[in-house]
């Protein structure tokens, strides 16, 4: 019986968090989805209330003594819409005065809903696709981006110093990020490789609510990577970074290699003098911290340090401007956790809000370090005719390196 496993999704500390929420509503003040949607089902604390109702009897003393689960399936079905009306950006955690990790509790709620089979219709297709193709985009051509390159990419080279884990979005939806990253690694003369049998890092499964599949994918990826005997794994996707660095240990998937985001590696190369940037960008840049890299990943300084190396040094404050909500407080792009598949209009609104913040800051270029953010912002800028260019950090660095070599 599926219901018996529901409680296992929770941690003791999460029960304490559920019991600590005083329903003050501070989370809704900071939630990008609620701010743009304004419907009461998007209130973050509501999901905690739903979770409390669902497991209420289970975590009572009587419920704990008796073995049968009393998870309320009716409540679970009702909670489905609200649970997926969220980008899992984690801003509610930073906004919560008590520091309740609402986002992680929502993951638990999603996993219960997934187990009961109540996930929203648009996500059911993604679920099948992910299972079949091992990526959420239904593509067999993960290595298609290699064909566009005019240099050879090392594939499955054992004993390399670095493995570049490309990620589904960079490999399939926005190959220019993969190409730029490969160009940077090649420019440094690093011993590196990619693998030809990558699977999704598992973040898509977590967004859907299938924790078991996330764990299986994680274990399989780690096994394949370890068979290549590499020292470091570099990712250009913020979601992949969060998964490898923070979620794999939580899923009890251990590994023996170092995980770096590409911005960390570029920053290191620049500091060591291994990488030389060339022509400087003489347009005003603003950096959008991807939620999974900053608030949920802890990387906020390295991308900024990298950007400082590709703008005119003498007028750094003029060329690198900050948006009001940055670093750990960053605003979501709107594309996380498949929100754009369920509510594309809401994703567009959230992205528009962020693009307006960038414009108000005086930026002509918005730079991110996540392929999902880049795609969402590019689409929004095109649809809304916003006069702002969107780049990934790897693209700007690759351009600058190329100009120094020409």
């Amino acid at each position: 019986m599926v219901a018996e496993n529901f409680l296992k999704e929770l941690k003791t500390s999460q029960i304490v968090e559920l019991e600590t929420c005083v329903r003050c509503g501070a989370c809704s003040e900071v939630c990008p989805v609620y701010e743009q949607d304004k419907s009461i089902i998007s209130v973050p604390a509501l999901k905690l209330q739903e979770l409390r109702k669902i497991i209420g009897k289970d975590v009572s003393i009587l419920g704990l003594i008796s073995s049968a689960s009393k998870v309320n399936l009716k409540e679970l079905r009702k909670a489905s819409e609200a649970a997926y009306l969220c980008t899992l950006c984690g801003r509610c955690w930073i906004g919560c005065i008590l520091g309740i990790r609402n986002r992680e509790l929502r993951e638990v709620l999603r996993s219960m809903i997934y187990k009961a089979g109540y996930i929203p219709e648009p996500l059911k297709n993604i679920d099948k696709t992910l299972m079949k193709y091992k990526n959420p985009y239904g593509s067999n051509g993960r290595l298609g981006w290699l064909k566009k390159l005019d240099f050879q990419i090392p594939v499955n080279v054992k004993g390399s110093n670095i493995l570049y884990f490309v990620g589904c979005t960079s490999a399939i939806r926005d190959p220019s990020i993969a190409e730029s990253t490969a160009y940077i690694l090649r420019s440094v003369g690093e011993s590196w490789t990619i693998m030809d049998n990558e699977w999704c890092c598992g973040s898509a499964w977590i967004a859907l609510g299938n924790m078991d599949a996330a764990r299986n994918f994680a274990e399989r990826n780690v096994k394949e990577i370890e068979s290549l005997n590499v020292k470091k794994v570099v990712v250009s996707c913020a979601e992949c970074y969060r998964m490898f660095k923070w979620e794999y240990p939580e899923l009890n998937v251990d590994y023996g290699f170092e995980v770096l985001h590409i911005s960390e590696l570029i920053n290191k190369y620049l500091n060591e003098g291994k990488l030389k940037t060339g022509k400087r960008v003489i347009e005003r840049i603003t950096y959008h911290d991807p939620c999974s890299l900053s608030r949920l990943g802890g990387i906020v300084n390295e991308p900024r340090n990298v950007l400082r190396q590709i703008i005119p040094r003498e007028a750094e404050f003029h060329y690198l401007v900050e948006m009001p909500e940055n670093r750990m407080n960053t605003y979501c792009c709107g594309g996380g956790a498949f929100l754009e598949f369920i509510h594309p209009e809401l994703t567009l609104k959230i992205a528009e809000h962020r693009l307006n913040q960038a414009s108000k800051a005086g930026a002509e270029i918005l730079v991110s370090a996540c392929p999902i953010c880049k795609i969402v912002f590019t689409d929004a800028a095109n649809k809304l005719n916003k006069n702002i260019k969107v780049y990934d950090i790897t693209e700007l660095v690759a351009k600058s390196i190329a100009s120094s070599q020409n």
Partner: protein
Amino acid sequence: MFEEPMVVFISTMLPLITLFIFIYGVALRFLKWFMIWKVLPAMGGLSSYRGSRLKGIFNSFVLDHLPSHSLAARRDMAFYVIGVGMHIAFITLLLTKAHIDSILALIKQYVAIPTILYVSKPFTHILSIIFISCLTLMLARRLYQYAANKSLRVISSIGDFIAVPLLLVTGVTGLIAALSSQLFPDYRLYIIASHMVVVQVFIMYTPFSKFFHGITSIIVMTLSGLRKAALGGD
């Protein structure tokens, strides 16, 4: 005639009942957590820390609550000021002479407690007014949002409409009790007795209500601080 047994009951018997119910409630909570602890993992495995754990916890308890750092403050300063004002006033009011003396009266025969600094009387009155005002505004905010079908409507529970008024009554009776020797000397005993009763109802209700966040928030804020220390981002 009537006064003496009533006062004796409120000051001797009722505190024992209160203490029993409070301990019973807390024990139930801890028992539940203990049982959950046996069936669930305690917390996620934080495998590495980029920042100092002590600094992370300090930030979580202190720095993150300053208006310059709090995201909630930046988003809604009025709500932040009211919330923080209420909590600071409440904690400070617990240190007034009358409160310390009444606690000491109960336990001084068992424990030797060193003299501590009391909050002075005029300051007590100001704090009480701040406390009552902030609580009233918080209740008004919840009622307004409830009526206007805003976010607090869907997340409020019956407990919210019991807890805040109960705390409000505690504050109001406390202020009246503090002023009673000047304003209502004839009714002073009744006023103080009513405040004591309300306070004890509040204590009895604490383990079964949202007031328990006073204890659980220490755990949650510590965990949140550790998470931030692990990330080490800002």
